[in-house]
């Protein structure tokens, strides 16, 4: 009887202890935070400044989100990860999104990161004078066969009445030697990333460079956007709103010239191989591409540009039928 009483006391004591510890312990915060995963398109660099800024400076946490920001890479596809449930949010290029939608992927575009596509062509400005589009006739132009730069360049020449036979295409890979050796006059680069680095190298060698931007000739092929799934929007609309709010605020802060040093330092923490000065210049160009004017609201979805992107892909038979992409753009 005495033993039973003792056992009862111990059980009551344990239950009381658990009751005290559990609600007031570290678990509380965890249960309130919503965990999500965010797959980027590329490695940590200036192009993902706002994404890492949101993570490091607590923008996600402020919205009650615990976000695992995952680096992208050439073989990683955020859309597939979303469908498989490995991530809830991701970044994908417009051509990836349109292709996926054409194959029934339940994807929705939440925000458009770049208002101007950073994919441009670097060229030596003293050897190639480009005042009008016809000036590219007879030039050797690098393109990645199967990549979106092929779609953009072919759309550009078609739109401007240039025949494919009037230019020479060169199959581009990671190695820039053909451009350095002048075998190729125009080489595709991301203006805000390797564009700065290669431009610097050539400038040092006293070779002035310029960038050929298809946007100036009427091709508004959309670049990277933030995406999620239809299910996510239906089942967790609040999480989606909070995620977009946090991300937009973070990007606005990161791109604000007043926060330049803070943003550069944040990027450098993740991208140690790039010098601070290079990151600084990359960031300035990124700002021009994401917020071309003061009035531009970060993340604005340019519906007409999306429609043009779809049209280009349809014309080039990259998709077999229209997908009405405007229906997949989040409002």
């Amino acid at each position, binding site marked *: 009887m005495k033993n039973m009483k003792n056992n009862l006391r111990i059980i009551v004591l344990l239950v009381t202890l658990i009751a005290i510890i559990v609600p007031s312990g570290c678990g509380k915060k965890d249960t309130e935070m919503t965990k999500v995963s965010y797959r980027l398109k590329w490695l940590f660099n200036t192009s993902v400044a706002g994404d890492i800024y949101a993570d490091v400076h607590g923008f996600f946490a402020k919205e009650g989100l615990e976000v695992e920001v995952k680096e992208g890479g050439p073989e990683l596809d955020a*859309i597939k990860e979303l469908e498989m449930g490995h991530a809830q949010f991701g970044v994908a290029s417009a051509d990836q999104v349109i292709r996926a939608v054409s194959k029934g*992927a339940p994807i929705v575009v939440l925000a458009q990161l770049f208002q101007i596509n950073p994919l441009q062509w670097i060229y030596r400005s003293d050897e190639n004078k480009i005042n009008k589009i016809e000036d590219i006739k007879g030039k050797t132009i690098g393109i990645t066969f*199967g990549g979106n730069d092929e779609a953009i360049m072919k759309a550009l020449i078609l739109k401007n009445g240039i025949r494919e036979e009037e230019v020479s295409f060169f199959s581009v890979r990671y190695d820039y030697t053909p451009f350095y050796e002048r075998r190729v006059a125009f080489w595709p680069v991301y203006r805000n990333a390797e564009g700065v680095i290669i431009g610097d190298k050539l400038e040092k060698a006293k070779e002035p460079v310029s960038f050929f931007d298809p946007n100036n000739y009427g091709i508004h092929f959309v670049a990277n956007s933030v995406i999620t799934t239809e299910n996510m929007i239906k089942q967790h609309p609040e999480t989606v709103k909070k995620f977009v709010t946090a991300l937009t605020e973070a990007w606005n802060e990161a791109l604000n010239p007043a926060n330049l040093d803070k943003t550069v330092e944040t990027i450098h923490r993740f991208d140690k191989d790039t010098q601070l000065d290079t990151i600084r210049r990359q960031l300035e160009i990124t700002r021009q591409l994401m917020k071309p004017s003061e009035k531009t609201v970060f993340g604005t979805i340019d519906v007409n540009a999306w429609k043009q992107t779809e049209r280009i892909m349809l014309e080039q038979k990259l998709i077999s039928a229209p997908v009405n992409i405007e229906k997949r753009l989040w409002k």
Partner: protein
Amino acid sequence: MFHKRLSQFIIVYLLGLAFLFFIKAVLNLSDYVIPSPVEIYDTGLKVFLRYIPDVLNTLSVAIIGHVLSIVMATIVGIISRLSNWMGSFIKTAAFNIQAYPIVAVAPIIFILLGDGLSSRLLIAAMICYFPLLLSFIGILSEPVTDIEHFYVYSGKMRWQLEVKIRAFENMNKLVTVVSGSATLAMVGTIVAEFIGASKGIGYSIRIALYQSDLSKILIALFLIGIFTSLYLAFLEWLGNMLVRNWRAKA
């Protein structure tokens, strides 16, 4: 033998496809992640014939790379059995070079040699050469005491005879190693094309990957499997012929 190899490959391929369709159905995935059977069939109709020359191109480079590797491994294997120091040095070097991932070395090769045949050939040879070499060194350094001691004691042993005895006694092992390394040569060539070349089925897979088109990749894998199986079956047939002829002569 050819028929058996092909049917075995087709069974494995169909099992793989069935597994993919099972995952697609269970997880309710779109055609973007895993294409439907109809899409794979349609894609097959469009690209099958176009991919055949690409696979043949890859296979021809792989075969040349494979033959070069066999010749080099044989020569170096014979040399390295001459002294313990040389054998151990070559072994260590082979292990070390083998440890470097080819994706890290390939860009340097492409920068130096360009994106043509020589780069693909070198990478294919590199991938299948070192495993071959290590096996050859192992086989040719291992004395066949029962037979060799007679020639040693009678003073008739020469290095050519030693190599012959060891090769003859281990012919089955050698044939297995050579045919096994054929797949490595094929893999090496495809990796090279995938990374930097502008020809071959590896290059076509790269483009399909840019377009997120898994159905094209599946067709390419089917063709790679068919032609690799044929090559392996041919090597096995050749090996068996060789063993039979040697045994008959002996």
